[in-house]
């Protein structure tokens, strides 16, 4: 029993070491020359476009539901006019980035994990390496940079759609014009709400790409390892996202909300 715990921890520590090495190799290969632009653009398209619908729908529903949930409390407090501001601040700062990132962890991290995992199992990665090409540069660098770029963009789109969902929900009961609603939202936001959220979602995107690539690239060679790679990519990436979120809020409050 104790032995199992010790070997478990040992494995975990070794895993951390391996991830550091993987990160170093990724980082070196960004600047190694011969950046794979066309593959990078293709990945951006795949990652961004394919997840847009899902992010859009979830953000829309989140915005709608939040207004419906918040409304009774705020009306009770006589602060119904605060609804747009409350939604805008909570959505831009926290809910938008986290929802988008979690959705992307489920969709993108798993598909990267499965794709690279199956390339590993079918020896495609070995074949690339043995041919003298650089699989890390072609497969890993492009994917990680693409997620780091696309997740923040998806997050911004999700924010806008979420606020729109809130507008519709508000119009179930009150009637507020579109321009008044959005003016209220924008007026309640400032730079210190927006910037940290975008920066944080860059890190979310990085975590999603990195974990997906790491799990896929280092999976074992049995057929069952493809499933394992995809699954553990989602679980690990989701954990990372909450972890980064917790750190981000500390840093943000130090820097902005004194």
């Amino acid at each position, binding site marked *: 029993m104790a032995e199992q715990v010790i070997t478990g921890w040992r494995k975990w520590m070794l895993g951390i070491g391996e991830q550091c090495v993987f990160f170093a190799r990724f980082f070196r290969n960004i600047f190694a020359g*011969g950046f794979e632009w066309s593959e990078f653009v293709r990945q951006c398209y795949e990652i961004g476009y394919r997840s847009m619908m899902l992010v859009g729908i979830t953000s829309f529903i989140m915005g709608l539901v939040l207004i419906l949930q918040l409304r009774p409390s705020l009306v009770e407090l006589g602060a119904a006019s605060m609804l747009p501001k409350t939604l805008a601040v909570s959505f831009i700062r926290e809910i938008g980035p986290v929802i988008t990132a979690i959705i992307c962890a489920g969709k993108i991290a798993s598909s990267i994990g499965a794709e690279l995992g199956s*390339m590993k199992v*079918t*020896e*495609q990665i*070995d*074949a*690339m*390496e*043995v*041919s*003298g*090409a*650089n699989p890390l540069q*072609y497969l890993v660098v492009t994917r990680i940079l693409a997620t780091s770029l696309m997740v923040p963009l998806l997050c911004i789109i999700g924010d806008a759609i979420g606020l729109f969902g809130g507008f519709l929900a508000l119009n179930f009961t009150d009637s507020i014009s579109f321009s008044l609603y959005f003016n209220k939202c924008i007026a309640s936001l400032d730079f210190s709400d927006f910037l940290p959220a975008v920066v944080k979602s860059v890190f979310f995107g990085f975590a999603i790409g990195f974990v997906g690539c790491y799990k896929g690239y280092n999976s074992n060679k049995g057929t069952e390892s493809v499933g394992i790679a995809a699954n553990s990519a989602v679980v690990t990436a989701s954990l990372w996202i909450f972890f980064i979120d917790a750190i981000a809020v500390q840093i943000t409050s130090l820097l902005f909300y004194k």
Partner: protein
Amino acid sequence: MAVAKEHIEPKKKASAQKDEVVIHAQGVKKAFGDKKVLKNITFDLKRGENMVVLGKSGQGKSVTIQCVVGLLKPDEGTLDVFGENVAEMNDDELKQLRIKIGFLFQSGALYDSMTVRENLEFPLTRVLKLTDQSEIGKKVEEVLDGVGLLDAIDKLPSDLSGGMRKRVGLARTLIVNPEIMLYDEPTTGLDPITSREISELILNMQKKYKTSSIIITHDMECARITADRIVVMNEGEYIAEGTFKELQKSDNEIVRSFFNE
């Protein structure tokens, strides 16, 4: 030291060419955990020679050639390719070496998100760094024609049969004109007619491009057609060596079992 002398000498006589040793393995050992996969592998591969490695599955045949290209590192022993120890190479040297070695994977290992054309273009643009589109296109068509699959140029690997995949895999490794070819079970899982075609293709490639090859197989027809020399591998060791005819007369039981199938 004796080891080093042995392989430097033939290198000096490179002008003699015929006996030039391109791969020299001396006492190579490799274990995974407690499992000793390679126990003592020693062989020389000469320029222009086809060496066939016979052996049941799980004897360490694939592990041997993975050591040759530096995918795996031997635990003990030396493995020199073109006179340089593979295990001591840095990334750049390894890359330069790999350009000169073609590796045909058991599965073909085609990049399944790319068409046949893109598969063949990959080593040209990524490894040889060619940029001239018309030159690339010409090369791709020429090599694909060589394996008789020009019709399949715009197909995806998933639309190809097992034999076609192997042939595309072969074309993809040959397109950079390697000096050494390593074939991992090139005919396994194919029907007898296709197997024969592949075996003859291997022989033609040897004649046309003067490549030296290691061919791993348990297909005796393939061994008969392609081999200049055969070694038999069992439990991580070579237990017999000779030409097809010589081994046919062997009274070793394991060797006999291959010929009596």
